[in-house]
């Protein structure tokens, strides 16, 4: 069970919300806010060194596809959404107590690195590996 916020007596006499009520609440909320019902997934985002005007000192690459994660982590989490076991439980509890427990968040589950080749001020050349620069997969956390 998720405890209510401090100071507010959990009102035992209040009828336990049924899952149906929660479903109605979610549908209403979704319709009103026009929240995209799209599930959590990876979206394109390109970082262009060229658009930043850096092609005089960055030799390669010209930019990189970094991607970002967005989408709903709503119960029941679909099979294509990587979700931790905890996230599945949290979506359910959010259903029953939407004011108390937030939905899980849609975030990267796998990140990959890139390498950048560039000149330094002394015109030496540097090849550097950077970790965690590209989203490989998203999921509910």
């Amino acid at each position, binding site marked *: 069970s998720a405890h209510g916020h401090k100071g507010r007596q959990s009102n035992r006499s209040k009828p336990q919300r049924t899952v149906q009520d929660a479903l109605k609440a979610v549908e209403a909320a979704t319709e009103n806010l026009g929240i995209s019902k799209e599930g959590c997934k990876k979206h394109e985002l*390109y970082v262009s060194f*060229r658009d930043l005007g850096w*092609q005089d000192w960055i030799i390669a690459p010209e930019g990189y596809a970094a991607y970002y994660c967005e989408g709903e982590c709503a119960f029941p989490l679909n099979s294509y959404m990587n979700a931790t076991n905890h996230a599945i439980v949290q979506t359910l509890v959010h259903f029953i107590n939407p004011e108390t427990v937030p939905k899980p968040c849609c975030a990267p589950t796998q990140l990959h690195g890139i390498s950048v080749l560039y000149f330094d001020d002394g015109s030496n050349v540097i090849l*550097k590996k950077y970790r965690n620069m590209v989203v490989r997969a998203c999921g509910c956390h």
Partner: protein
Amino acid sequence: NFSVDSEVRSSFIQRRLRNQERREMQREILSILGLPHRPRPHLHTKHNAAPMFMLDLYNTISTDTEPHGYSYYKTVLPTQTSSVVTPQDSRFLDDADTVMSFVNLIDRDQDLLFQQHTREFRFDLSRIPEGEAITAAEFRIYKDFIQERNENETFRVRVYQVLREPPNSEVELLLLDQREVWASEEGWLVFDLTTTSNLWLVNPEQNLGLHLVLEDSNGQKRNPQMAGLATGNGPQDKQPFLVVFFKANEVRLRSVR
């Protein structure tokens, strides 16, 4: 204007970044790259062999099959002299977090030893990435095929570390490595400089550079160009350079912004 030439950008915001946005973006990405400011390299050194070699290294580890690299390099530097990445380089590269190439700071006309057929090299290792240890270092010098020599003729190339340069007497040298070469050989000669580079890193005041000497089969000192060594006045894409492989020995924390 920028071309929307790849589907990756299809959903990206289709507008130019406003100046303020661009500056913000630049500052944030520079902090990700671990750079205090954007470098401003001298234009003329872009033709050196080092960028070509480093581009080969970059393409060795780039995930996509299509070699990267600006059209700048594809047009400017002929690929036949691009220094070949050796299997040893690939092993160094796998283990490294950063690789740096260093240009020779001694210009040909500064090379006072030029008359005595000795070539001098100096590299500034003071700007290396913080918190990284040297795992390997190579001094690379290009040797051309020598047409007018007897192809069975051999030479000996010796590389010395300068230990001391007393004002009024002979320079004190330490032989680091030597290589027998045939007149008919062509390609990059690679000398291991790992120990010396680590010494220079720990004691920068001992970084007095290198001397390169060529001897013929009779042990006579000869002009390195006689054996086809590109020691400084050859074409820029055959310039000798130092390449150093580093491994991060601590997690780099970004500067507070």
